[in-house]
């Protein structure tokens, strides 16, 4: 049994079928990539798993540790152990980085809150003395904001993490730091789903789901998906008309 199981999931928004009978299993403790070109439905699928506004009216089943979670709110899903890192994270006027990073630390670990916040920032290469009292606002660069986003997820320490386009808007150094943290999370047993169209991110994954036109068209080890994706999807040569020849 995977930590997340998706059975026959479909989603229609404004008469557009965005997700079409998606089935997939996400295995505990592995890094998975959901890969595909822009508009394939990757972020929509992740948003549906998180239960974000506008992505909840799905048909089919979303199971987390065997429990159907379709009817749970975002925070209820988060407290079960799911979280999501946005491609372009929100900015907050006046909320200190320490408060933001510490917001998701569960009550059972509140006694170590300060240590967890400092450690999470340090893991992302952010000096706590320099950053914890700054606001999560426009004064942070895009790369800094991404690091703070991942630090907040590290501090929360959920069993299942989805990261939407984790490499977008960041420099090479930050990407390396992020890859390091992702591998550390894997080592401690965290399951990760990377939503991406980047080969650099795809290469961090153990397994990959290739998505096109709202469908999962292939599931395999990442090493098998990479050559197909590189050859046929960059650039996309079939305009959302999946051709799976050569993937398996």
């Amino acid at each position, binding site marked *: 049994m995977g930590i997340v199981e998706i059975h026959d999931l479909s989603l229609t928004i404004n008469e557009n079928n965005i997700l079409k009978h998606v089935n997939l299993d996400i295995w505990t403790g592995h890094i998975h990539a959901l890969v595909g070109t822009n508009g394939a439905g990757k972020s929509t699928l992740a948003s549906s798993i*998180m239960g*974000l*506004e506008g992505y909840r009216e799905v048909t089919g089943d979303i199971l987390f540790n065997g429990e159907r979670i379709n009817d749970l*709110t*975002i*925070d209820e*899903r*988060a*407290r079960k152990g*799911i*979280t*999501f890192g*946005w491609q372009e*994270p*929100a*900015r*907050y*006027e*006046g*909320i200190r980085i320490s*408060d933001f990073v510490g*917001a*998701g630390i*569960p009550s059972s670990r509140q006694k170590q809150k300060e240590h967890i916040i400092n450690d999470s920032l340090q893991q992302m290469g952010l000096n706590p003395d320099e950053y914890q009292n700054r*606001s999560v606002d426009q004064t942070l660069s895009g790369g800094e904001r991404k690091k703070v986003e991942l630090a*907040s*997820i590290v501090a*929360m320490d959920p069993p299942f993490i989805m990261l939407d386009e984790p490499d977008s808007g960041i420099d090479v150094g930050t990407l390396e730091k992020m890859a390091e943290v992702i591998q550390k999370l894997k080592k401690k047993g965290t399951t990760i789903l990377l939503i991406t169209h980047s080969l650099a991110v795809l290469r961090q994954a153990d397994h990959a789901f290739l998505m096109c036109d709202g469908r999962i068209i292939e599931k395999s080890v990442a090493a098998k998906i990479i050559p197909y994706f590189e050859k046929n999807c960059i650039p996309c040569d079939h305009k959302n008309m999946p051709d799976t020849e050569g993937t398996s």
Partner: protein
Amino acid sequence: MNADPKLRTALTNASGIEQDIFKRKDIAHLFIHHNKIIGLQGVPGLEIDAEELDDGVSLQIVLKKDTLVANPVHMCFGLMHNEGLQRIKMKIHIQDNASMQVLAHCTFPNALNIQHLMDADITIGKHASYSYIERHVHGDHGGITVVPKAKIHLQDHARYKTDFELLKGRVGTIDIDYETICEPYSVLEMNARVNATHNDVVQIKEKGHLNGEHSHGVLLSRVAVRDEATAEVYSELTASAPYARGHVDCKEIVQDNGVVSAIPIVKVNHPKAHITHEASLGSVDSKQLQTLMARGLDEEKATDLIIQGLLR
């Protein structure tokens, strides 16, 4: 002066002021309870003349030319009773090249039927600087009406900053009316942060006239409105001289059955002047909210954190 130590202690405790300031000769203070002066200490160069009236006090404050007051001056205007009228008439002159910061504590923790009316006339001389941070502490009943009015005149190169905060306790009714005239190279910054709940009523009227060349002004307001509360923010900034620069920034978050409105008026009367404005009114930003919920906070806690941040 009626220096009632018990009353002063009660007022300072309710205001969150550390008692240590009374032992320090280098910290000026002025404490007023209803119409009684219960604490007054100046520092060299700062003259405070206070006169008790039937329903409040009249103050003449002069900061002498070239005086730089190192520590913030603490002023406390309050009423520990649950009803009454407190009228503060204030004339302030910060003379040329002088500088002072005031922390004003307006404390009405038991208000059931209180009116706090302030009328200020402030002149800030050439190259002088004056900062006035006004923090209100109200009780939980909302039985208070606060009406601060001020006319401020900034001379050449003067700087004036005011922060108005009403975040603790019920607002009741508040009606702020500040108007500032800015001469060349002067800098104006007016900030207001108010947290309104129940049936509180908030009215903020701020006007800045950037009459001098290279004068700068920012009017910033942050208001959170919940339950049945209402808020109206009127911000007017006029630039009438070359290189006058200004910005009006208003954010209001509304929850429940609250009602908010913002009326920004920006006027530019000179081709080399420039003013910008931004306003954001409405519910809590969905992405901000969902991000915090995805970390496990329920909607109410996530909303509170966002509002606390906005009002910080």
